[in-house]
Structure formats: C-alpha cells, structure tokens
C-alpha cells in the first residue's frame, strides 16, 4: 500500500496548501461548551472530596482517631479537588505538547 500512502500524503499537502483542512486543533481535556466544562470541574472537585472523606473516615475507623484524620483528609481532599480543576486548565499540557 506504499502508493496509497504517497497519494494520501500528497493529497494532504495539497489540501493544506489550499487551506481546505482546518488547523488541527488540540483536543485537550478542555474542549466543549462552557456548561460541560463547568460540570466537569464540579465533578473533579466533588470526586476528590469524596475520596478524601472516604479515606479519612476509614483511616479513623481503623486507627480509632475520630475525627482528626477525617478532618485532615477533608482538607486534603479539597486541596486535591482544586488541584484537579487546575490540571483541567493546565498550561503545561497544552503548550508543551507538540501533537
């Protein structure tokens, strides 16, 4: 299929020359309407909180230190949630990656 590949390549080049193909846009984690982005951010925060609370609660039950680890992991979960949202808008991924 070597000739097919060559043809595809030439076709692509020709299309790019004529500007027929839209610029390949980066399909990062942030593509979609603002509502869906907002929903995604909310899910990230809530899930991190849930994991933090669950971890703290189980550790407390295991170690018998209620409610200190629960409170600690509640805070950790909130921070992790904020970090998840920050990752959603991560400048590192979108700028450092060349396709």
């Amino acid at each position, binding site marked *: 299929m070597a000739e097919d590949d060559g043809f595809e390549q030439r076709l692509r080049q020709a299309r790019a020359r004529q500007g027929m193909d839209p610029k390949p846009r*980066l*399909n990062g*984690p942030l593509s*979609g309407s603002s509502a*869906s982005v907002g*929903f*995604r951010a909310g*899910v*990230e925060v*809530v*899930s*991190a909180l*849930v*994991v*933090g609370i669950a*971890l703290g609660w189980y550790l407390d039950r295991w170690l018998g230190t209620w409610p200190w680890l629960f409170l600690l*992991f509640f805070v*950790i*979960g909130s*921070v*992790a*949630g904020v*970090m*998840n949202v920050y*990752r959603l808008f991560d400048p*590192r991924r979108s700028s450092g*990656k060349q*396709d």
Partner: protein
Amino acid sequence: MAAESGSIDALSQFELAPVFGPVGAAVGFTQSNAHMLLAAGLITALLMFGMAARAVVPGRLQSLAESSYEFVHGIVDSQVGHGGKRFFPFVFTLFMFVLFGNMLGLFPYAFTYTSHLAVTFGLALIVFVVITAVALALHGRKFFGYFFPEGAPLWLAPIIVPVEVVSYLSRPVSLSVRLFANMVAGHVLLKVFATFVVMLGALGAVGPLVATLPLAVNVLLIGFEILVAFLQAYVFAILTSIYLHDAVHLH
C-alpha cells in the same frame, strides 16, 4: 404507567429486572447484562460485517467501521503520543462499549447500562488498574515520584504527597461519576417531560394542544441526548488516553 397515579416516576426506568425467565433470575442475569451482550454483539457485528467487504471504496457499513477505528486511533495517537499504539485496542473497546451503551439506551424500551454507577465505576476501575499497572511496569519504583514533583522543596512533601495521592485516587471516581451523572440526568429529563405529555394530554379539550409543548421539548432533548451519548463516550476515551499518557511518560 406513572402518569395515571398522578405522580412523576422518573427513576423506575433504572431498576434492574431479571430476564430470560427462571434461568436468568437464578443467576441474576438482568436486562442490563442483556444490553451489554447486545452491545458487544453489535460492535462485533459492525466490525466483522463492515470489514468483510474490504473494498477500496468503502460502503456504508465499512465506512462506519473505518471511521470509528480512525476516530479512536486519532485520539490515542494525539493524546498518548509515542508508544501509544499498543493501548489502542483497550481504548477502542472502552469507547465502543460506552458509546453503544449510551446510544442503545436512547431506543424505546431499551435499558442504559451506563446509567448505573456500578457499571461506570467498574469500567473506570479497569482503567485505573491498567494505568497504574502500566506505570509500574514501565517505570518501576520511579512511578512513586509521580506523587512528588521534582522542583518542589522537600519540606512541602507532607502536604503535596497526600494531596497528589488523593488526586490520583479521585480519577476513577470522577471518570465514572461524570458518565453516570450525564446518562441519569438525560434519561430523567426525558422521562419527566414524557410524563408531562401524558398528564397534560388528559386535561380535556385543551390538553392535547398544551401537551405538544413538552413533546417538542422531548424532541429537542433526544437530539441533545444523542450528542451527550457521543460526547461522554468521547470524554471517557480521551481521559483514558490522557491517563495513559501520564502513565507512559510520567510528566
């Protein structure tokens, strides 16, 4: 019917019921499982029969099979990057399974197996185990460096490491809850407005006229739900690819 009792019963559509008579009841084989099998069969049929012709100029079915292949291939290639090709079967299977689950659920009388948290969390857990196993296999003990960024000062470790661990553990939760919540919300909305149609339709002379309003809403909602069904499968696939990228490259 829910409307006859005068209340809106939007959640009974998610109830599981065993199928295939006493045999199905004995092994707990529900309509959800039946739809999963149906989806698996349809995906296999699409790819087998679609690609059977192997025509240079593809027909309709072959075109569908090829474009779904190329779509997922594009996701994996662009997100995972170098060395991502071997994860293509995994991501493709997940994408098609979720997509067919979402789409099948939009047919009348069909069941949406992706509207159950157990199913979506099961899928997300598979993803989580795979990305962790891949990262451990490729990087060994260096994987744990993922939880502590290199440039950070050491005294911050007691704060950063738990936060990173919780953030990592929250991945399967957010992955599954997103899909689950989208599917449930869509189907509840559809049911609510469908019940409005029945309730308003029974309001005497003006009833059928007024009932066209929620009917119109439902027509719009179905179109929106088709978009959501595709979008959520896409998001599931792309997030899996992003996690795989992290697992392969560890930043």
